[in-house]
């Protein structure tokens, strides 16, 4: 019976793996090899880590471009406005603290007005208007008169009148006498809180 079981086990085990592959196995394998080879040579073959790097570079470049597109014009506009303001401001005749104090509010005012002007809708340029009307190009607005001199009183703290301080002399302190404690001396009295 034992031998019969061994024989039956062998037979069943053999049957469990008794099968033949598809007849087209060789053709399928060679076709897959050919496809793989064609994919490597015909197309852009890169390993996976290289594709990850390419994707990261793409994302970085797109992000940088978007960031530059959004922040670039504003910063360059501010820089040009500040440059224009500094160039149009006449140099102080007498450089000093007062002149600087005068110049700073004026520059700030010009920058503020320039920034607010940047948001206004653009109007027709004088030269274009003159061309439409038929006037020569050199016709333009009359030069503006120079600004009036600003007379600003210097700001500062008002003078403070401080009364003189007087110190009265203190009374003389009498010297303290302390008796020595020893045997036979009266016991010092205790202070009770109650």
């Amino acid at each position, binding site marked *: 019976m034992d031998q019969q079981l061994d024989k039956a*086990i062998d037979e069943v085990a053999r049957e469990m793996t*008794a*099968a033949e592959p598809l007849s087209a196995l060789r053709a399928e394998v060679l076709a897959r090899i050919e496809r793989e080879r064609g994919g490597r040579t015909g197309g852009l073959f890169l390993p996976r880590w290289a594709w990850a790097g390419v994707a990261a570079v793409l994302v970085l470049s797109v992000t940088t471009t978007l960031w530059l597109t959004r922040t670039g014009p504003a910063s360059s506009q501010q820089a040009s406005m500040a440059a224009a303001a500094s160039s149009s401001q006449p140099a102080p005749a007498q450089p000093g603290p007062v002149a600087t104090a005068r110049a700073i509010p004026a520059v700030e005012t010009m920058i503020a007005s320039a920034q607010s002007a940047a948001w206004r809708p653009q109007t027709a340029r004088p030269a274009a208007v003159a061309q439409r009307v038929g006037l020569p190009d050199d016709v333009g607005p009359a030069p503006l008169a120079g600004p009036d001199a600003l007379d600003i009183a210097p700001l500062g703290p008002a003078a403070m009148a401080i009364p003189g301080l007087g110190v009265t002399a203190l009374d003389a302190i009498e010297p303290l006498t302390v008796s020595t404690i020893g045997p036979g001396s009266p016991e010092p009295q205790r202070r009770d809180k109650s």
Partner: protein
Amino acid sequence: MSIQGVSDPELVERARRGDDAAFGMLVDRHRSAVFRAVLAALGTREGADEVAQEAFVAAYRYLRDFREDASFKTWLLSIAWRKALTHRRRVRTFVSRFVQPPEDTEWQIPVAGGSQEQAVLDTELKNAIRRQIARLAPKLRDALLLAAAGDNSYEEIAGMLSIPLGTLKWRVSEARRQLKLKLAEVGYGQLAGARG
């Protein structure tokens, strides 16, 4: 071109030089052994063809890494075995999430001919053996099926499984012993010799 007189190392060398026909000859020569090894691991024909193809393609891809300290067949079978185990693990993980397959559906065996009574007895016994083989530990079952397939020597199977020859022999023997014990429990034969 006949492949009878051309040795495996020669075909390998030609395939390394880009001769696809030589590799095709290697495929023809070892297709049955590779397929049966894969079948032993998977237990079903479904997926076995695909895994066998993958094994051959992987072998072609890594042909330059093949060192001739082992035979090409052993090297090829070890690739096929790893592919099959990976597939088996993946399929079981996937299936176990959704379905609990009945054990009897594995390994459909055709019934052999003979007298009707004997055929019924044989079928019952074979079904019982098949169920018990399916319940064996995978290491024991793989060793038993690969040894019983008859395509590969014990040395080749040991190389394929990356285990010592003695370990393989012990696994085959242990698989038989456990099978006999289980069969005795369900009433097949007096198996005093198997209780050792």
